[in-house]
């Protein structure tokens, strides 16, 4: 009896699930969008047409989000009332969100080609809540088509989606890699020019001060006269010469 009961329960579960496993694998939206995976959100490609064979007008498609290591243990809820809420994510390690009418996933449905998970910061306790994800994950997601009697179809679980983790800004090192050679060249050339100028000035001023002291031997412009040494002869004009005669030193007239 007990075995029969277990078998019946198992059969009942299967019948209640009536679950079609669709081959679609949810994935992060392709395309170059830097915001498709952030620290608390990620963006999925919206599947189109895949639920049409199974969906009625009143059916809803949910997104189940679970931690990657808890996705195997995830049990589909039997009715809309038993959907794990967003707030239960830390304990139940899974939740369901993004409830939308099945028509939104139809072949010719209008709307964006992407679904943003975690983009609603204003829902507080109101189910279903598409709140930001509290940790970087990794997470796995699957779509679940729920009718009045329970889940009717589901997709496969996605690959693990890892969210961004921000590095601390104290790891940024602002010091420059190396001194540029231009600065070194400018500094070196200017320093040498400055030193050359300083030496030139000292040399010029020194020569000017030195002239009266250094030219003692030549005897010109001496500032003193002694008794013994006759005053030196000043620089003179060339010896006097009268036109026609040879230059001769001064002296008494030659007796002619």
């Amino acid at each position: 009896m007990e075995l029969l009961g277990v078998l019946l329960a198992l059969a009942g579960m299967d019948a209640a699930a009536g679950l079609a496993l669709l081959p679609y694998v949810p994935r992060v939206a392709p395309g170059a969008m830097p915001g498709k995976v952030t620290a608390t959100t990620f963006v999925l490609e919206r599947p189109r047409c895949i639920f049409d064979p199974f969906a009625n007008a009143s059916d809803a498609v949910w997104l189940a989000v679970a931690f990657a290591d808890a996705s195997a243990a995830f049990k589909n809820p039997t009715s809309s009332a038993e959907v794990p809420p967003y707030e239960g994510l830390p304990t139940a390690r899974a939740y369901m969100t993004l409830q939308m009418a099945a028509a939104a996933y139809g072949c010719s449905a209008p709307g964006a080609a992407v679904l943003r998970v975690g983009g609603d910061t204003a829902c507080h306790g109101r189910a279903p809540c598409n709140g930001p994800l509290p940790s970087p994950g990794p997470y796995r997601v699957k779509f679940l088509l729920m009718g009045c009697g329970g889940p009717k179809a589901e997709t496969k679980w996605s690959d693990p989606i890892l969210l961004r983790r921000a590095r601390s800004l104290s790891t940024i090192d602002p010091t420059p890699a190396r001194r540029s050679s231009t600065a070194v060249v400018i500094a070196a050339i200017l320093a040498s020019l400055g030193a050359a100028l300083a030496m030139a000035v000292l040399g010029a001023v020194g020569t000017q001060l030195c002239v009266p002291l250094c030219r003692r031997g030549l005897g010109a412009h001496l500032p003193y006269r002694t008794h013994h040494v006759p005053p030196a002869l000043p620089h003179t004009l060339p010896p006097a010469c009268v036109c026609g005669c040879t230059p001769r030193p001064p002296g008494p007239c030659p007796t002619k």
Partner: protein
Amino acid sequence: MCDMPWNKSGFFEGEVSLHEGLKMAKTDNGIRICQGLLILGNVVIGMCGIALTAECIFFVSDPHGLYPLLEATENNDIYAAAWIGIFVGFALLALSILGIVGVMKSSKTLLLVYIILMLITYAFEMASCITAATHRDFLTPNLFLKQMLERYMKSDTDNNNDKQMTEGVTKTWDNLMLQNQCCGVHGPLDWQEYTSAFRMTHNDADYPWPHNCCVMNTRSEPINLDGCKLGVPGFYNSNGCYDAISGPLNRQAWGVAWFGFAILCWTFCVLLGTMFYWSRIAY
């Protein structure tokens, strides 16, 4: 006909003066050339002084509004170099006039004053050039990145000084991002890759990056906020602002450094010529 007195006679005087006259004519030409060159050199120095003053006033007036960024790094020495350049330019102009007057009058005193004051001006301009050239190297992208992450929209400031710097940085970045259509230093992912003061007050889901990174309409609102948050091309600014920052700052640093260097090389030659001329002037 006896020995001629050593004072000159008329004929003697004539022959001697011819020889001396030739010699004096040659040195006279040499002096004139020397004076002409020095005056020309000083005219060029004067004009370069005016140009240097004008250039440095332009830089100090900060037409791109980047000064608050440098003030917050506490490394605004390239502005100090520009300030020194203004005064050096005026000094060069005044000293060049003094030099021209000194050379024309061949006055040893004036030229000595000129040389000494020029040396002082030379030293200041050397300091300005070397400062501008070496401090340019500190303005790396990481410096601005770290500052932006630390200060942009920082809410808890320690003291008045901190508050002023934070407001300056925030306002400057907002202007930069709006006017140059750019985001962050390298791109919008700067806000995602690192923690920041902005992240403390703005949650990641609503503000993956600041809304100033979004493409704006004429009323300064994002044309598509959801597209901007996702990073859909056309709704957000994908390029970084580093070029808009480093371009003007590089021009300022190199403008002050290289122009000053050129002036100093020329002034070196003119000063050497002046010292040579000064040492040949008789009292």
